[in-house]
């Protein structure tokens, strides 16, 4: 079949080749085109932040003890960056958001809005992607400190345990407890690409940070 070998197959190879090129370098082309567009701008560019940031990383002082009245703090809204999370002995250093949609996970790690915020005296449940901000969560060791800096205070938690559980296992977290603690999680295995049913959980007990009185 000459038509197949001289026409069909070359077209097929070209199409597949272009597809591979597009997927592999398409993002770079976008960057290059952006630079070219910048050189030929006809109007001032409008910059819109993807999210609101209420966290000042270079704040002079941020309480790490005592009590705060709820009326004294700025409570984050869903999607707001309100802090930063780091784990001792790991490469985890991520922006902290209130909310855990894909938007928050794209830019950092997110607090589940059905859990508490640091200082509320409840479980703080935080998720992040295993190929970005929580890629090194597996390096977290028992006894290491999780530091959560927020716009209203700095909190520290000591890692007590790590384990792999099913994503649907409701015993993995306790959202009813009145004792402040932190639970971090990401997909497992860490190199999994796609849907996996397991999660890697890291648990931390409260060490320090200002407690928020929600009734004042």
């Amino acid at each position, binding site marked *: 079949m000459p038509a197949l070998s001289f026409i069909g197959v070359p077209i097929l190879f070209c199409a597949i080749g272009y597809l591979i090129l597009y997927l592999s370098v398409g993002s770079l082309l976008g960057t290059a085109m952006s630079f070219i567009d910048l050189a030929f701008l006809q109007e001032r560019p409008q910059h819109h932040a993807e999210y609101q940031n209420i966290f000042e990383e270079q704040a002079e002082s941020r309480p790490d003890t005592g009590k705060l009245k709820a009326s004294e703090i700025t409570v984050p809204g*869903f999607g707001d960056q309100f802090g930063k999370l780091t784990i001792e002995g790991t490469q985890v250093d991520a922006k902290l958001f209130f*909310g855990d949609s894909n938007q928050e996970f794209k830019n950092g790690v997110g607090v589940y*809005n*059905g859990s*508490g915020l640091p200082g509320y005296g409840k479980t703080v449940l935080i998720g992040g992607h*295993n190929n970005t901000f929580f890629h090194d969560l597996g390096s977290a060791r028992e006894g290491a400190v999780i530091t959560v800096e927020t716009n209203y205070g700095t909190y520290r938690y000591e890692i007590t345990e790590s384990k792999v559980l099913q994503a*649907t296992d409701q015993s993995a977290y306790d959202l009813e407890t009145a004792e402040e603690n932190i639970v971090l*999680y990401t997909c497992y295995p860490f190199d999994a690409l*796609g849907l996996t049913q397991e999660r890697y959980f890291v648990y931390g007990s409260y060490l320090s940070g200002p407690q928020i009185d929600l009734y004042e």
Partner: protein
Amino acid sequence: MKRLLCTLWISMLVVLFSANAFAAGFNTHEQSVLSALRSGVSVNGTTIQLPAQYLNQAENYLNTVDLTAEQADEIIGYIGHAKSLVREEAQKTGATSIAELKKSGKTLLNQIVSDVQKAAAVADLKVGYDKNTLVGTDASGKTVFSAAKPIKKTGGDWQPLGLIASAGTLVVLAGGALWAARRFRLYEEA
């Protein structure tokens, strides 16, 4: 029944959204609302409670608004009505948990959702399903409630690599087919 309880929460939020000012913390009116939510429904010798994640979302949201007495009374009225529906259904079916109530039909749930949406529209709010998950958003589009499960998908995005792998496979298969055609002279050469 999980959706019914979510809707109960949404119905409360409908009135919450019309709150005026922003003041963190719970005033006495909000405390009354939270007490009503926490008390649950006593029926069939047990108390059916709202899941902790919904109570937490209620607290997280009430922490950002100030309710008036009138607003709180109206919310508590909605909560009471929803509780009566749950109690009635539980008495009818003998259910003692949310899991058992889940087996109830959707008619009652749809009626509640319809009422909630009408109330939400008055307060310029949107309540609805986002990919089968009940979600409540304020006027700016910010999420204030979600019935999604606590543990999310946090794995790498497989789609780009999947497409590349698929394309590569097609190349190999196409090359193999061409080789086989020529090797075994499956066609007559011109």
